[in-house]
């Protein structure tokens, strides 16, 4: 990361200065952590290094763990990171509900059809499924 790029730095400042994340980074309880789950589906990152010709393939979903010592305020003993390297937002509720919505054209129709799940359906259309898939 180029720290002299103030526009980019500002975008990521909240993440890189997150004290809880730094605490996880700095803590050590005998093992620095590892991956415990990865999807078989992969995503290509290009470029992924300083050399423009390099590229990397990573699993779309990766789950990592790191044991913690319990020295933080909450006495945490484990950190878990679930990463979405994919180009689409992951919306499990949409995956369930929208699967049944193939022939339903509008959020209003969907909401009527799935009245008990109205909030979820609206959320899927507005925040994820429709916008993500229509790109």
């Amino acid at each position, binding site marked *: 990361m180029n720290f002299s790029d103030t526009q980019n730095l500002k975008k990521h400042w909240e993440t890189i200065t997150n004290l809880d994340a730094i605490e996880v980074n700095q803590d050590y309880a005998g093992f620095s952590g590892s991956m415990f789950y990865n999807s078989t589906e992969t995503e290509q990152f290009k470029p992924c290094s300083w050399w423009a010709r390099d590229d990397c393939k990573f699993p779309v979903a990766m789950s990592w*763990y790191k044991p913690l010592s319990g020295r933080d305020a909450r006495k945490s003993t484990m*950190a878990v990171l*679930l990463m979405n390297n994919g180009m689409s937002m992951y919306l499990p509720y949409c995956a369930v509900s929208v699967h049944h919505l193939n022939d339903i054209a509008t959020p209003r129709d969907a909401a009527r059809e799935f009245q008990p799940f109205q909030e979820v359906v609206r959320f899927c259309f507005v925040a994820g499924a429709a916008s993500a898939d229509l790109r």
Partner: protein
Amino acid sequence: MIILPRQARDKHRENTQKRVAFSYSFKLSDVPGLHSTGGCTAYSVWEGKSLGQVTADDGFAAKAVGSRDSVFLTLSGCQ
């Protein structure tokens, strides 16, 4: 009103099927070294708030994970 054309719906269906092929969830027993039968309290690092109890039976399932985003948890009070 949003009308999804057939092509978009097909793409939508394809992506939906892709999404269910992997998960952003885990059982406590999936995490190596975490020997918890009574559950843990989960804290969201990015949101800065407690997410409450994660039980050994139900585990944790993310409600949504943005593209190139992550869910970052610390677990405490594991029994």
